[in-house]
C-alpha cells in the first residue's frame, strides 16, 4: 500500500512523494486556490460580524417597550417570496459559475442576469417592508427589538445591494475582457459571496420571521 492510500489526508505529510501544494511540500498553491482561500477567510469573518447582530437580536427580541411585537409586524407571504427569490438567485448564480467554467459566454451572462433580477426583486420586497414598517411608526427608534431588527436585516440587505453592484461589474468584465483567469477568479469569489449571503438569510428567516410568528 502506498503512503497516499494509508494517509489520504496527508496529516503526517510523510512519504516524500507528496505533490500536494500549499502544505509545505509540492510548492506553493495556485493563484486560484490562494485567492479563493483568502476570500473564504473574509466570508467567515463577515459571518462572525453577522453573528454579533444575530446575538443582539436574540437578546433584544422581547424588549418591545410597549411597541409592536414580532408577531404583529411580520407577514409570512412576503418573507416566503423573499426566501424563494434569494434561493433561486443562489441557484442561477451557481449555474453561471458552471457555464463560465465551460467557457460559454451567453449562458453565463444570462444566468448572471437572472441572478441580478432575482436579487433586485428580493431587495425591492425588503425595502417595501421597511417603508411600510416605518410608515406605521415601527421604525428603528421605536424599541430595542426594532433597532436590532433593522440592524440585522438591514445589514443583510446592504450586503445584497453591494453584491448587486459587484454582479453588474462582473457582467461588464465578462463582456469586455472575456474568460481571462483574473475575471474567472473574481467570478468565483462573487459566487462564494452570494451563496454565503443565502446561508445568512436562512438564519434570518428562521430566527426573525418564523420564530417571531410562533
Amino acid at each position, binding site marked *: 500500500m502506498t503512503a497516499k492510500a494509508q494517509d*489520504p*489526508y*496527508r496529516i503526517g505529510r510523510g512519504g516524500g512523494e507528496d505533490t*500536494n*501544494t*500549499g*502544505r509545505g511540500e*509540492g*510548492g*506553493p*498553491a*495556485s*493563484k*486560484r*486556490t490562494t*485567492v*479563493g*482561500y483568502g*476570500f*473564504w*477567510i473574509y466570508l*467567515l469573518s463577515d*459571518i*462572525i460580524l453577522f*453573528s*454579533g447582530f*444575530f*446575538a*443582539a437580536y*436574540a*437578546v433584544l427580541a422581547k424588549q418591545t417597550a410597549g411597541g409592536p411585537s414580532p408577531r404583529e409586524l411580520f407577514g*409570512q407571504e412576503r418573507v*416566503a417570496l423573499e*426566501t*424563494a427569490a434569494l*434561493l*433561486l438567485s*443562489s*441557484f442561477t448564480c*451557481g*449555474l453561471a459559475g*458552471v457555464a463560465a467554467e465551460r467557457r460559454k459566454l451567453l449562458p453565463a451572462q444570462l444566468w448572471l442576469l437572472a441572478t441580478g433580477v432575482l436579487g433586485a426583486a428580493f431587495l425591492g420586497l425588503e425595502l417595501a417592508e421597511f417603508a411600510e414598517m416605518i410608515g406605521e411608526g415601527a421604525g428603528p427608534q421605536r424599541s430595542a427589538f426594532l433597532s436590532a431588527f433593522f440592524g440585522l436585516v438591514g445589514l443583510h440587505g446592504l450586503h445584497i445591494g453591494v453584491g448587486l453592484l459587484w454582479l453588474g461589474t462582473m457582467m461588464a468584465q465578462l463582456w469586455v475582457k472575456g474568460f481571462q*483567469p483574473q475575471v*474567472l477568479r473574481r467570478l*468565483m*469569489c462573487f459566487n*462564494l459571496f452570494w*451563496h*454565503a449571503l*443565502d*446561508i445568512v438569510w*436562512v*438564519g434570518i*428567516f*428562521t*430566527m426573525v420571521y*418564523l*420564530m417571531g*410568528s*410562533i
Partner: protein
Amino acid sequence: MSERETDSGDTAPGDEAAEGEEFAGGTSGYVVGLGLAALLTAAAFAMVNLPLVWRPAVPMALVVLAIAQMGVHLVFFLHVNTGPDNTNNVLALAFGTLVVLLLIGGSVWILGHLDHAMMPMDRQMHGFP
C-alpha cells in the same frame, strides 16, 4: 507562483475537485441542492403553520431545519466537503463556526441570566424604598 489555475491536491472553496467525479458536482449538483433547500424551507414554514409538531418543540425543530439547510448550501452550493483537497477550507470553517457559536450562545446565556436577575421595569419606575 504556479502557472496552472487549478491543482489537484488543494481546492479553492467554491471550486469543484480538479480530478475525478465529485459528489454534488456540476449542474446536477446544483439542481439536487436547490431541491433539498426548497424542501427544507417548505418544511420550516409548515412547522409554523400546520399542527405537525408539539407546539413547545417548534423552535427547536426550526433550529434543526435551519442547520440542515445551511449544511445543504455548504455542500451543494459552496462545494465544501471532506475530501483530502479540502482540509484547509474545512478547518477555517470549523474555526468560524466555533466563534459564531461562542458569540451567539454566550450572549444569549449571559444576558438571559442578567435579564432574569434584573428588577422588573415597573417597580424601578416607582422608586426603590
